[in-house]
């Protein structure tokens, strides 16, 4: 295994681990959404690193190369970059939706702490007979 891989994959997964730790240990909704944003950045980095090829340039043909001079063997994988471009925009959309829901939750319940995920019988205690 090469050192660059260790640095990249290791660094990215530590980043993701911090995000998961944030989600699990924090109760503040906005902080949880921030932790998800950290995970999102990590996953995007992961996708692009999968497409990286050492010693090659960005997937853009120089202006004067023209047709016929295809940059085979010179550029990195363009697909993950295109996917990440999409994923970043989608990430903004999901973050915005989650934030609006958090603001609404705060306005209704007066707190940003999501106390329980009331599963099963526990949620029913609140229901009046």
């Amino acid at each position, binding site marked *: 295994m090469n050192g660059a891989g260790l640095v990249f994959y290791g660094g990215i*997964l530590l980043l993701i*681990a911090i995000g*998961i730790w944030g989600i699990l*240990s924090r109760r503040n909704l906005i902080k949880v959404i921030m932790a998800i944003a950290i995970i999102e950045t990590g996953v995007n980095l992961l996708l692009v690193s999968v497409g990286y090829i050492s010693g090659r340039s960005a997937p853009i*043909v120089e202006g004067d190369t023209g047709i016929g001079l295809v940059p085979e063997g010179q550029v990195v994988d363009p697909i993950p970059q295109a996917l990440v471009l999409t994923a970043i*925009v989608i990430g903004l959309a999901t973050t915005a939706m989650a934030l609006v829901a958090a603001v609404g939750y705060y306005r209704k319940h007066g707190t940003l702490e999501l106390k329980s995920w009331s599963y099963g019988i526990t949620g029913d205690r609140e229901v009046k007979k």
Partner: protein
Amino acid sequence: MMERSTLQRSLPALAIALLFAATVFVAFMEIDFGEARVDDEGSVAGDYIRNGTNQTGSANLVTSVVVNYRGFDTLGEVTVLFLAATGVGALLSFIRKDDEKEPGKKIEPSFILNRGAGLVLPLILLFGVYIFLHGHLSPGGGFQGGVIIASGMLLYYIANPGKRGAHRAFSILESSAGLAFIGLGIVGLMGASKIFLANDHADIGEVGMLLSAGMLPLIYISIGLKVGAEMTGLVERMRGEAS
């Protein structure tokens, strides 16, 4: 007491997170970093690299993937952004009533910000347009150009808190740019290949020129306008003092 319970929650959480990350990390170590997998037989990306410029006429291969090969994804993506902007507006319209009761602390923009934003706005907008017009030639494109336009508009709004009312125009722009994107896709469906979003109607032209790559720049312009309008709408609605 508080510190202790935070710690009690924190340590198991950290352990779970590290365990999870370690599993995924070991899995990723199987994928060699920096390896030229695109040169392997049957790699889709390898075919894009070999034929991308010839097939789509775009000098920027990421653009050719985003707009042409995987244009359907991009259509879905601008739809996601559209839905988010609409959804944020819809949900905030129920919250906004409370805002009127207790107006937040308004920050008055300084004179320099006020005047400066007016001067800078055309330049920023022009730069955004430049970015998405050259999406098939250089880094950047519809998304990045759209965001730049959105940031220009947001700066203008911050500097001129009184100026409102462009929401309707943005909404119209957003919808019509989306319809234009689908329309360009249907051109492909009606065309020779009968394939949605096919780029076979226009001449591909000379790679590296502004007027090249067939429908690609047209599609990227509609994406750019749509993303610009949507992001402006999204952030302005999050700000929530308008309309």
